[in-house]
């Protein structure tokens, strides 16, 4: 469940699919379609467009860089102030599904290092939200204002919590059907019932 990013990591691929605002520093012939508001064939120097992070990163790292990257709203000063004051009040489920992971990529575009500090502060403050969500008996509903990775951590902690309370309650743990076997049986049954 660890979120280490690597070439084959699905979660990192989803993070790098997020769109971020960029400004093109060169003309791009035939790339007009990258700007949905334009009908031109070519993309002109100076155009501001939102493109996926993976594309922005690869264009930014060309020498010379082909784009400059602007901060998405949630990392800008207005939000940073709110987050630094009380990060727990912000609904990251709505405003930043991949707040930390995207932030790690974005932070280098903020030379003053404010984004980095906000990420660290926010993470530290919101840890207690995960703590309390993981031992609440409700299932992790979509109503909770947690980001995607916070949600995953909460779910993992809830699994531990549940295993422990089962252990405390009962004697032996019966042997059980393997996970995938059980899931496939369940799916097969569901499919059969449809007919």
């Amino acid at each position, binding site marked *: 469940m*660890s979120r*280490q990013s*690597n*070439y*084959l990591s699905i979660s990192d691929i989803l993070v790098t699919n997020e769109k971020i605002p960029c400004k093109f520093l060169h003309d791009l012939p035939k790339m007009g379609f990258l700007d949905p508001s334009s009908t031109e064939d070519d993309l002109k120097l100076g155009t501001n467009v939102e493109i996926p992070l993976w594309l922005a990163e690869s264009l930014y790292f060309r020498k010379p860089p082909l784009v400059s990257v602007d901060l998405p709203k949630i990392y800008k000063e207005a939000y940073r102030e709110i987050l630094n004051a009380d990060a727990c009040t912000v609904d990251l489920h709505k405003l930043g599904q991949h707040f930390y992971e995207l932030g790690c990529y974005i932070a280098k575009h903020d030379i003053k290092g404010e984004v980095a500090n906000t990420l660290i502060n926010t993470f530290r403050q919101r840890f207690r939200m995960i703590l309390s969500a993981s031992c609440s008996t409700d299932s992790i509903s979509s109503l909770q204002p947690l980001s995607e990775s916070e949600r995953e951590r909460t779910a993992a902690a809830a699994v531990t919590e549940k295993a422990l309370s089962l252990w405390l309650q009962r004697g032996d743990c019966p042997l059980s059907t393997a996970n995938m076997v059980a899931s496939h049986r369940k799916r097969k049954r569901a499919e059969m019932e449809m007919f």
Partner: protein
Amino acid sequence: MEYDNIELSDDEEEITAQTVLRTLQNAWQNERLAPEILPHQNEMVECMLGQIQHMERNINKLPKTDLRASIHKMELNRIKFIICNYLKTRLDKIEKYCISILNDEKQRLESGTNYLTPSEYKYAQEYLINMESHLKEAALDHVPGNMQSFDLNKLVIYPNLQAHVFLKANETVTGIILEDLGGDQDEEIDLEENSQHILQYKPIADLLKSGKVQLM
């Protein structure tokens, strides 16, 4: 039903089955909790398998309802659990970190400090070959020419040596350097005998391998 003391091939020193079992149990626990693969304990595994075999033969001589038979069987099941779980944990790591383990292992083989058993090494190599041929057959062979490479440097997955682990110090160790990313100064800590800590794996990896600390 007595067991003999066992002589390990390389060692002149005699060790008891009890010690071997304890070593193996410890190795299992550490392997389960360490992010990277640890040096193998093949001698201990084989030695224990020998004990199991010996014991099983003797149990078969006992009447089925003999109390001793069930006690011995229960103990054997416990030991088999440790061995299977230990070996499977290693296989899981070998598969997940296949490329990086093979890279490290090639260097270790040269210096004779290999972490994998010969069987594990063969398994890892074969696993990589199978992975390569599947990815080629399913995708790489069909994409445009300059995209076809099976690039080990990109596909490699490293164990997270920066992962935080819980440990107990078996003896006092001083001067562990913790990397401090916030300030300018790294922090230095001592591990007193029997004290417990949560810290990054990397600075204590060697202590774990030399048995000075154990993971919890």
